[in-house]
């Protein structure tokens, strides 16, 4: 039982056949819709009951038109905001004319357009002049979704049914009346006590969006609003194609690998061929891994969302994010490969891997045409390092997801050294802190400083990864799976790779455990630590082109060592860091860089 996902993703016709619209009115309506998205998202932050939704921004609102085209989105998690259209389109087809004012629908099934089961899409149609004109839609990541393990990420099963409750599209509010039978069914299929609060919050948000859209329809009239939607989707499409027309036509390919799946199956291959054709983009994943024994699969909706999100970071950030943008990118994924799994495969963990490899592959392919910004906006974490044990203060079990801030995998762009903790596209998440988490869990966070020389060298330097040392104060067990060891974050446009990940449990003891792929409940004693050396980001451009004074600054700031300056950048320093007397040996640097360049030439 699956929908034809590629058909759902196909471009949809405009609402009108070119009705004239005052561009000022169109802009006022567009601004109004973006504001409504913001209001819907904030409504969830204010009223949702679990921290995932009311604290860490794992929600996103969008407005679609009657044909299921995305008219406006709020700023949330990119992959989430871009996975909103397909489930709504499925519902439009499924319910047809049986959608009515006051209805609210819910969907989450990856084989009917969703990303993965924990992402619930709730949406309400908006009517005017007796016809459906718009759809207010809100997506939230839920902390549980039924299935055989809590949390929604069950990496021990090989099918979707073990992952949780599947909803292709279902009416939860019928003409303004809550369907208590349906909501009760949702409640009993979820472990979280706050689940109903979250669902009601999401329903309320969709209803708020529908009400506010109704006001806009009343003020401007349905025909004007429809013409406005056509107008700004069309003008966005033109802006996107104008930019892409600046890229040389051709087909550009990349092949990237994930280290392994949670079961240790190695070298998961992603192939992409991106064709630039007179302003259009075709992203084709033909050739990608399709081994049946794999556990991690990315749903078609998730693959499409990662593809669009990565392209959005490579094109001008000023282009609005609506259907005009999305429909200019055609995503081809052969059914049966890890990015469009055969029916029934598990897909929960696929939002991490192989999902992130989608972004990595597209960025690497587009280096050929837009090197300045072709920076992978992804991460290389398998799953968090989960620590479980019993808290002596309460006598209760605790589960610490090690969600504290740490730096990793952040790659430079042309003109900008990588900075902060993670890539820009995750900038909307708000990570946990030492001072709060030490009050909650029996551990000490001893270190999370940047690791010297771990950022990929380049004309613009990749960000260092963090040392992340955590000491447990009680006996505990560690559960995790680690990637990015064999395939670290690659450099861009000739930049060097970031340092790989390395996780050592019982770090510094006489019985250390270096994680090869999985740590399945590995015990640690009270007072022992784990050290996660998080991988660095890739560098951008040839490190030999980096301004030597910038390298000197990096050494003074201990992002780069004196040895690293010479080894990675060909910059020779004299004097002492300790005494602040470091200086560039200009002659030796010029000679060394010359020699390296010649060497590079000979190597080919």
């Amino acid at each position, binding site marked *: 039982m699956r929908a034809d996902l590629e058909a759902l993703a196909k471009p949809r016709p405009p609402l009108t056949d070119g009705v004239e619209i005052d561009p000022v009115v169109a802009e006022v309506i567009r601004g*109004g819709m973006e504001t409504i998205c913001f209001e819907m998202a904030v409504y969830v*932050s204010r*009223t949702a*009951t679990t921290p995932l939704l009311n604290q860490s921004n794992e929600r996103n609102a969008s407005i679609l038109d009657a044909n299921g085209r995305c008219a406006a989105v709020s700023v949330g998690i990119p992959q989430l905001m871009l996975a909103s259209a397909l489930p709504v389109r499925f519902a439009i087809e499924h319910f047809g004319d049986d959608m009515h004012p006051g209805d609210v629908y819910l969907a989450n099934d990856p084989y009917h357009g969703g990303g993965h089961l924990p992402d619930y899409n709730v949406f309400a149609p908006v009517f005017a002049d007796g016809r459906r004109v718009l759809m207010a839609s809100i997506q939230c990541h839920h902390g549980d979704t039924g299935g055989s393990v809590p949390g929604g990420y069950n990496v021990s099963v090989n099918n979707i049914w073990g992952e949780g409750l599947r909803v292709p599209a279902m009416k939860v509010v019928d003409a303004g009346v809550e369907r208590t039978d349906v909501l009760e069914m949702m409640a009993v299929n979820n472990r979280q006590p706050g689940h109903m609060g979250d669902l009601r919050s999401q329903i309320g948000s969709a209803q708020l969006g529908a009400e506010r859209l109704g006001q806009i329809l009343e003020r401007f009239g349905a025909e004007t609003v429809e013409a406005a939607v056509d107008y700004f989707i069309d003008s966005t499409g033109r802006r996107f194609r104008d930019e892409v027309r600046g890229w040389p036509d051709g087909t550009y390919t990349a092949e990237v690998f994930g280290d392994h799946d949670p079961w240790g199956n190695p070298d998961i291959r992603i192939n992409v061929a991106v064709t630039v054709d007179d302003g259009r983009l075709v992203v084709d994943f033909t050739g990608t891994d399709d081994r049946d024994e794999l556990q991690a699969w990315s749903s078609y909706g998730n693959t499409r969302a990662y593809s669009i999100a990565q392209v959005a970071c490579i094109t001008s950030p000023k282009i609005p994010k609506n259907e005009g943008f999305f429909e200019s990118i055609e995503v081809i994924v052969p059914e049966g490969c890890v990015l469009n799994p055969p029916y029934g495969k598990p897909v929960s963990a696929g939002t991490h891997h192989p999902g992130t490899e989608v972004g990595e592959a597209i960025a690497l392919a587009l280096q050929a045409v837009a090197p300045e910004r072709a*920076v992978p906006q992804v991460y290389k974490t398998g799953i968090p390092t989960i620590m479980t044990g019993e808290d002596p203060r309460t006598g209760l079990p605790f589960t610490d997801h090690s969600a504290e801030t740490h730096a990793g995998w952040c790659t430079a762009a042309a003109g900008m050294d990588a900075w902060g903790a993670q890539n820009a596209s995750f*900038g909307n998440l708000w990570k946990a802190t*030492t*001072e709060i988490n030490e009050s909650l869990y029996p551990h000490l966070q001893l270190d*999370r400083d940047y690791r010297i020389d771990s950022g990929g060298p380049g004309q613009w330097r990749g960000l260092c990864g963090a040392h992340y040392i955590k000491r447990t104060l009680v006996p505990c067990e560690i559960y995790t799976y680690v990637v990015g060891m064999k395939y670290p974050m690659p450099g861009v446009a000739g930049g060097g790779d970031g340092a790989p990940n390395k996780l050592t449990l019982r770090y510094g003891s006489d019985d250390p455990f270096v994680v090869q792929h999985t740590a399945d409940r590995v015990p640690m004693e009270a007072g022992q630590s784990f050290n996660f050396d998080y991988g660095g980001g890739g560098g951008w451009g040839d490190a030999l082109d980096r301004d030597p004074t910038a390298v000197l600054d990096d050494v003074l700031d201990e992002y780069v060592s004196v040895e690293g300056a010479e080894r990675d950048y060909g910059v020779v320093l004299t004097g002492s860091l300790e005494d*602040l007397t470091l200086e560039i040996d200009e002659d030796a640097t010029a000679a060394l860089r010359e020699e390296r360049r010649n060497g590079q030439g000979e190597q080919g």
Partner: protein
Amino acid sequence: MGYRVGVDVGGTFTDLLCVTPEGEVLLDKAPSTTEDQSVGVMNGLAQLAERVDLPLEEFCSQLEIVVHGTTVGDNTMIEMNGAETGLLVSKGHRDEIELRRGFKEEIWDPAFPAPAAIARRRARIPIPERLNYEGDVIEALDEEAVRRGVRRLEKLGVRSIAVMFLFSFVNPEHERRAAEIILEEFPDVERISLSHEVMPRGPEYERVSTTLVNAYIAPKIAKYINHLQTQLRTAGYAGQLLVMQSTGGVMPPDYVSRRAVSTLASGPTGGVMGAALAAGRAGVSDFVAMDMGGTSFDVCLVRDDRPEIKTDWIWRYRYYIGLPMVDVQSVGAGGGSIAYVDQGTLLVGPESAGSQPGPVCYGRGGTRPTVTDADVVLGYLPADGFAAGRMSLDIDGARKAIARDVGDPLGVDVIEAARGIARIVNANMANETRRILASHGADPAELSLIAYGGNGAVHAWAIAQELGIHRVLIPKGAPAFSALGVLVADYVIDQVRSYVAPLSHVNPQRLIDLRSALVGEVRREFEPAGLSDDLIDVDLYLQMCYQGQNFDMSIPLADGSGFDEDEMAELGELFHQHHEADRGFCFREQEPLVRGMRVVARGHTPKPDRFAELGTESDAESARIGTRTAYFGPEGLDVPVYDGSLLGVGAEIAGPALVQEPFTVVVLPPESTARVDADGNYVVEI
């Protein structure tokens, strides 16, 4: 009783408001002096002295109080030209300030720039030392490392040192000892900012950011305030100088110098406090305060006469400021906002022509059309007699620029183009207001609008229509409203100190100690103000949340609680109730987490009886000075023009109409009415 003066330094003008011993209200403006703001302040005082026919010395000696709002801190952060700053920080947490809990402002742009560093990594010295969450010493302070670090910072040219050790707000001993060592090693250091003093609560990113900003701007602010005080003394002023903070309250210079960061963004706060007072007198308790000036549009929600205070998620100049602040949001929309067409779309702002070169119609060399240019083309602003008769506006220049940059690209005539500019900027401001209201769960239809700033009166009607607001209040003193707000503000201390524990594990003695420390500190800080006890209110709150939440709720504490088991259970229940009222749900089965105690202390200051001088004409017709063509739709209307300075209490005007005030125009659309109330507000019904 002597003269009372409020002075607010803005980007272009230094606004002054003086209440005379007789209760008269004088408004004045002097050009701001960016190099040294005190010059503009002293010039303004000289202007006021002249108005009351006194020599400056005589006037100053008769001053009862001078209250000051300054933008020295804001300017320092805008230009990033503060003190050379270094940081001593718990080992292993050297990079919190760069990590920013992962936050980045722009999620679609991999080349988005990093914020300019206050202390580069080389000037952030990791110090071996460690406390646990209860303040117990896990690792002793490495004093030798502190000495080495301070010597290194001195060598690096550092002048101001911040110290941030983990859990210092529970046990400040390590930070205090580090301060002693700094003074021993580096006696000439300009300032030491200890994190437990600047922001006595967790978590670490918020605290290190706030402390670093404080260290960065404090030397400049302290120098400036000292300088101004000296000049006031020299001029004969013997009283207290009070300084406005972003809490919406004032405090003496000594307090402010220690918490320099509390003056950041205090400018817009003054206007909100003025609006709250004016609205309260007019019987309006729930409203949106809206300040539209030349470059920015500032919005604040006020409910139950109290401006919303924000305690979390406060970003200014790309740094996190972890102090409670009046929640004023600024967007780049003002009279100077530039209009342009990009790929067929008309956009307005955020780029602004500012006051230099300014709008095209100012004739100061501006060439790109702005909102003010549209306002003059649409007939809202007069060609002659603008800015108290000191300025005439070049309508032809404005028309040409609008036709060239907006009309031609869109293929419409100049009026249509000007209307487009006005509609876009009004929609932008209305959308921004909606966002702010949404984050507080407020519905604009249930609120009034109070508009001030140079352009507030011109655009308020349109924003109100966009938002479905029916009542607009425009105070007479609107263009210099922030000076009024500064003058009427109360003394305020608003502080949170951390103590983290699940409700059932709270140590009552810790809470009792925390309370006496907080109350003692408030008394100490208020002492120099010489306020009698009946003028001081102290409210205490327990900060609570559910485990996993990032944001606290303030639960009011009864006097003299012993925090025994029953009382804690009651507080828990109160928290559930507050949570349900504010968020719509609660978890009675979940144990709340205590995260600290908050004190809000208020020392009341006298308020003037009225806020502006009024005219005497209660029949508007006698104040009518002409007719002008203005556009409220595609067709121009012949609209009556009134001289606002002549209008007295009770005067009524029916729209469409234009009421010219010395520094602004009150625009009344068709089918609206306005009435002048007893305090000099235009009460507009739309």
